[in-house]
């Protein structure tokens, strides 16, 4: 912790004692979101008039707040017996919840910052509405964590934070994909558990059907923001879009394979699930992206498997303190990434209208 002159040793001691007591009862997870800054002048210069009609409809829908009453626990919330849960499964389930919480929380911080620093009313309205949803989701997940005796520590505010920088267009590509892939993940899990309710290891999954519509709507907003400025979707930016598609898709693949017990308990075959999610996301992203990855290309699947193996090997090497082996596997992973990136993509003719309805 940083030196803080205005704290007395007695106060510090008292704080520590309280913290220690808390620690005995619960496991504490320190939230550690990043803080962002961007080109706020560029954001202010956004002009949504080329997509005005669709924009107004979407803002009206967000304002009507369809999920306002959704994030409440009711009698169908059946708390699992965490003590009876396999430790490995519990660890992965908690990790799933914590990383979901971190993503919602980071989204909230980013959207709020964009709302606060901007002067463009359209942009400010949108980001305020999306920050509302993200904070609500975070609150809901937090409650689920508390039930499992995992406390979230928000102490990061008084630690030194470095502000990192995102170009607005990269925020758009990344958050668009993150929201749409979030939708595809939640709805795929939900539909699977509809067929296999015996595998529903936690009640939170029952909330996913309406929940994912928030993610879907946020994605719609980013699609419109990008379509309002066609430069972002053409020329050399196509290479950036491809980069984001490959990076986000392959990270998801590697990450999901790091949670075998979680997926096994849900009765989900990770390879099937990831392919399903990526197919859905890819199909949806035709609403704005001029290219589509070729997910059926033989090098795609092979590359993902190889990337995963090298990432896991690098992590194992780090754990046993072998810097050399770690660097070797990271270099190989980077080569695999390049190989994935160079798979020819498919051209897509962007449709006249952006708006999609969640249909999976």
């Amino acid at each position: 912790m940083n030196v803080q002159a205005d704290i007395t040793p007695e106060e510090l001691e008292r704080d520590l004692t309280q913290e220690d007591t808390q620690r005995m009862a619960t496991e504490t997870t320190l939230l550690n979101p990043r803080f962002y800054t961007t080109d706020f002048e560029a954001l202010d210069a956004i002009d949504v008039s080329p997509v005005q009609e669709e924009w107004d409809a979407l803002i009206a829908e967000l304002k009507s707040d369809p999920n306002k009453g959704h994030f409440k626990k009711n009698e169908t919330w059946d708390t699992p017996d965490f003590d009876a849960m396999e430790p490995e499964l519990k660890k992965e389930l908690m990790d799933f919840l914590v990383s979901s919480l971190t993503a919602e929380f980071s989204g909230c911080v980013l959207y709020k910052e964009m709302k606060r620093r901007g002067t463009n009313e359209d942009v400010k309205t949108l980001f305020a509405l999306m920050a509302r949803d993200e904070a609500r989701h975070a609150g809901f997940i937090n409650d689920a964590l508390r039930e499992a005796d995992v406390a979230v520590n928000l102490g990061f505010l008084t630690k030194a934070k470095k502000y990192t920088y995102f170009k607005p267009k990269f925020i758009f590509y990344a958050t668009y994909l993150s929201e749409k892939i979030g939708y595809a993940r939640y709805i795929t899990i939900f539909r699977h558990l509809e067929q296999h309710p015996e595998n529903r290891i936690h009640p939170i999954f029952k909330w996913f059907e309406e929940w994912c519509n928030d993610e879907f709507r946020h994605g719609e907003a980013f699609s419109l923001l990008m379509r309002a400025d066609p430069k972002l979707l053409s020329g050399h930016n196509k290479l950036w879009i491809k980069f984001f598609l490959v990076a986000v898709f392959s990270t998801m693949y590697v990450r999901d394979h790091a949670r075998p017990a979680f997926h096994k308990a849900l009765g989900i075959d990770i390879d099937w699930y990831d392919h399903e999610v990526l197919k859905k996301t890819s199909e949806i992203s035709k609403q704005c992206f001029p290219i589509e990855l070729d997910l059926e290309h033989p090098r795609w699947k092979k590359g993902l498997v190889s990337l995963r193996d090298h990432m896991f090997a690098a992590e194992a090497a780090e754990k046993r303190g072998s810097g050399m082996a770690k660097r070797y596997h990271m270099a190989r992973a980077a080569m695999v990434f390049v190989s994935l990136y160079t798979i020819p993509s498919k051209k897509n003719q962007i449709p006249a209208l952006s708006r999609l309805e969640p249909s999976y």
Partner: protein
Amino acid sequence: MSLFQKRTEKVPCTVEVSHTFESLHAHVRFDDGSVVHPGDEVLVHGKPVLAGYGEVVIEKREATITRAGAIERAWTRLTGDLEFMELCEFSFSEEVRL
């Protein structure tokens, strides 16, 4: 702005932490309109803002902004984008288990 030397500024700020069922969020706002730039570092003074469950805490605090030098600012501008992955729910979380 110098190349390497770091300047610091003390500014008043308002922190808001909501730790409720309805909303989990935490924000810092600079009361004098100060603006942070890429690579700047912000430290809010005082004890950790502890909002117990069900509480919303809004406090006036003082913060130190350590301005990044020109090189660090340029570097952050160039490389910050690579950290976008954190926004994805399935990304490699950096959570520290205490």
